[in-house]
């Protein structure tokens, strides 16, 4: 499902250009003096904390960009800048071609009421409202009549499989159920852009897996433009179309999961990818060779979307190259068992990999 920016000629939904967020009293002055070269250390000495350091990227319609980083890396700050929960220190953010930072509060409220939805790490449900009332809340503040809001909220309850718990209060729900309410609430106004700030981090591993599946199912149906923040690299690999890895406010690498795993750009990124079992996350098409002028193929064919692990054994059983097919059964490349061995057992980068 990964989309390459070059595939789409349309305008990006979210476009960030050298976004800076620096906390501290004289952040503005410091930034102007630094002339675009922000060094975390100097700023820290001056009593400032660099949250986001020159972040530039674009997110296209229907794409899911996962921002991954450890705590303090600035990933949540970046998300808050784009949702304008915190004011950006410098830079440009455009949403659907409109200048987000130039909006007045009225425009911003309109934008949030119609285009944005957000899910929070600690669920952030209103404790005095029931499941149904929580979900209906964004509709009600928008001015939709109570019966209509409740009807829509009921649909959302069904969508996130909480049917039967409409009158429960948040305190009566488990963490996973609470987050389902949070998800339903963020989707109630049918936003185009969906922000998720570590939505599953507060959940147990098993529930987290279940919620990720649920999330993928929803995204399959809804196809929103998504910014997803997580500190869990495995989660990022599982969900993302593209991943931005952040450290100390800087985006270290922004690429597809496969490219990040196969070609980590910095030592920092490599630390994450080293532990990743490639065969479990990569698809055949990320490691296949171009078809070239070869003609000597085995009878076996594999799907380009197959995870390597699922087909590795049969490829290893073949002496000749195995053809790789796309969705429409066109041959798009081939893979040799020697390459399989390399991927399975060596941890060096795979230079010629491409998608």
């Amino acid at each position, binding site marked *: 499902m990964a989309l390459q920016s070059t595939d789409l000629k349309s305008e990006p939904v979210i476009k960030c250009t050298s976004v800076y967020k620096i906390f501290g009293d004289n952040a503005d002055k410091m930034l102007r003096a630094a002339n675009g070269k922000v060094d975390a250390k100097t700023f820290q000495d001056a009593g400032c904390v660099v949250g986001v350091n020159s972040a530039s990227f674009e997110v296209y319609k229907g794409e899911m960009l996962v921002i991954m980083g450890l705590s303090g890396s600035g990933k949540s700050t970046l998300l808050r800048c784009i949702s304008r929960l915190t004011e950006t220190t410098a830079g440009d953010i455009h949403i659907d071609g409109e200048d987000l930072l130039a909006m007045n509060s009225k425009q911003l409220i309109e934008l949030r009421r119609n285009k944005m939805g*957000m899910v929070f790490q600690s669920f952030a449900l209103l404790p005095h*409202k029931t499941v149904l009332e929580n979900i209906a809340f964004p509709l009600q*503040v928008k001015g939709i009549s109570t019966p209509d809001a409740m009807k829509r909220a009921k649909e959302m309850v069904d969508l996130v499989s909480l049917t039967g718990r409409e009158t429960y209060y948040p305190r009566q729900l488990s963490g996973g159920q609470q987050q389902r309410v949070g998800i339903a*609430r963020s989707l109630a106004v049918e936003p185009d852009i969906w922000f998720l700030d570590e939505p599953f981090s507060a959940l147990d591993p098993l529930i987290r897996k279940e919620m990720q599946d649920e999330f993928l199912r929803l995204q399959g149906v809804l196809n929103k433009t998504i910014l997803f923040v997580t500190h869990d690299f495995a989660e990022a690999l599982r969900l993302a179309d593209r991943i931005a890895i952040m450290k100390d406010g800087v985006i270290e690498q922004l690429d597809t999961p496969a490219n990040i795993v196969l070609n980590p750009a910095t030592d920092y990124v490599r630390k994450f990818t080293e532990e990743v079992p490639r065969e479990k996350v990569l698809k055949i098409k990320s490691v296949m060779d171009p078809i070239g002028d070869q003609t000597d193929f085995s009878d076996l064919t594999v799907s380009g979307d197959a995870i390597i692990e699922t087909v590795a054994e049969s490829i290893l059983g073949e002496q000749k190259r195995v053809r790789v097919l796309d969705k429409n059964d066109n041959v798009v490349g081939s893979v040799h068992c020697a390459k399989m061995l390399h991927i399975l057992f060596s941890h060096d980068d795979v230079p010629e990999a491409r998608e």
Partner: protein
Amino acid sequence: MDFMKHHPKLTSFGALLIAFFLLVALVPQNEANYLWRFPSLIAWLPGWINDFAEFLMFDFMPVEIYDPDLEDYETSALLREITRGFSGAVLVLIEFIRELLIGGRKTIVFFTSWDFVSENPWAVWPALPWTVVTAGAVILGFALKGRGLALLAGVALTYISVFGQWEPAMQTLSFVLVAAPLSILLGLCLGVLAFKSRAVESALMPLLNVAQTMPHFSYLVPVTVFFGVGDHAGAIATVIFATPPMIRLTLLGMKKVPLEVVEAGMMSGCTNRQTLFRVIVPTARRDILIGVNQVIMQCLAMAVIASFIGAKGLGYNLLLALNGLRIGLALELGICIVLIAVVLDKLSLAWANKQTDYFADLSFGQRHVYLLVFLAVFVACVVLAVIGKLILGEGINYLYIIPHSKGITTEWFWQAGVDRMVENWYAGLQGFNRGLIVNVLQPMKKAYLAMPVSATFLLVMGVGYIVGGIRSALTVGSFLLFIALTEWWDRALITAYMASFGVIVSVSLGLILGSLCAQSQRASNIALLVCDTFQTFPSFIYLIPVIMLFGVTDTSVLMAVVIYATIPATRYTIEGIRNVPQHLLDAGMMSGVTKLQRWTKIELPLAFPHIMLGVNQTVIFALFMVIIGAMIGTEDLGQYILKALSDKQGIGNGLMLGLCVAFIGLTVDHLITRWAKDRSSQLGLN
């Protein structure tokens, strides 16, 4: 030397005590000696306050006001007209609710005139039969919560009616139904303002501190000066007293709202106003509801005190009964007040927690079932009342309203009990009483009075310095200086002695009781429930049983103080000990501690900061009770406040005396909270 190095604080405390006693021993008791007593340099202040108040009320910003009676313009002070208008509004509200409940003509007069009423004898608003009000409360209770609350409301109101306290109870209720919503609204608004603006918050905080430590009585004089005497004055005094905790709890609750919840509101597209009123305020409801509960309790606690300035109702009758030493009657009245407090509290809580069903497809009848039932009951009760009137004729119509003190009473029973106790235990009680006074109280009082002012300053400021550095020392020093420069230093010492006796006994009792109860979850729950119940009683109620036992003496007051102030001491001890992390207790057990060791080595040290907050509450409670005790005759500041009440020029004295009491409280409060805060962060609690 080693000891001093390891315990620098203990050492400095020791040195401080030595210096203190040296001063006590060395300073000669001579009025001319400033080390012994400061001169009363601000003795002129009360007079100045009086003059200032008079200026405000009569000469400040004169405006021309049209007087319809004189049919002419007259000159009046602006403030006087404002307060007059405000008093009028409050009074009309109170009277409207009151006449709705027990009938009357004043509301009709308000909309027409006295002439109209005297010319038309039919122009009397009839009272609602008590059965209607009771049924209404039962239905309301059922609609809001269910059977339990309905039963409570029914029993409470039936009790009040059957015991012949219907009219005063409804008078009190009408007064509370005005004062409580006013306080809640005002508290909410100010709380929200303080939350929105740091400037408002920092201006409000010291005011709240003083307001919450000023004894109830000291509000009364200024209120009478500005608003006159009567039900409205009582209500206004109550609002002034009940609003501060509401503000504080609103602010506290709003500050505790997690940032993410606020952000969730913003991302849902809330405007600033929606974020405030639909996200932050409702999320802070737990604390705000505690505030509402506090307001209702304060209102009923003030019912008695407000009767000093003309509020009618149960409080006034209770005061009369206490003065006439009619213990049984006072007890019955006290129970009425408590019942009203509890029912109102539970109803307001249930209302706030009410849930709506959005998908129930209901007919008109189903939706308004409670209203329809009420209407039916209303008609039935009115018919019953009319039938009662026909049958009983001129006699008491028990189905309409049982007139004041025509109900059943158990007074004879209690009186007999008191008589019997006096008969049988007189010697013993008197012996105890005398023994306490001669052996403990008198010497203690003497010791307090023999303290040179310099020694007191040294001790208090020294403790301030050790606990919180120079800032704390200066803060508590300035509190003390204010008291020392008035002419009531000796009285303040007596107040301090009574309060500290009460505190010492209460804290010891509370520590033991609390520690014992904290050993089991069940006992803790029961004890906390008992504390809750006792706390709903207005402070006045505590005087009833002690007068029963000890008559009108200092001992009575001290006993009341001890009972009243033991509540917070016990509560905080239990909470503190129960909150000691379980893993520390487990670690202790595995190290093989005995129960006693567990208590002294683990539970007490860790619970101590929280317990100290309880001690702080105990001090405030004790001070209040000591002042209220002045009603039955003590010779401390409280008595002077009472005197100021009956004096037209008492506003200055009343305020200054109130401030003196407040400053005693604030001094202790400052030292304890400061210490507790440091200590808890040292222990890594919170």
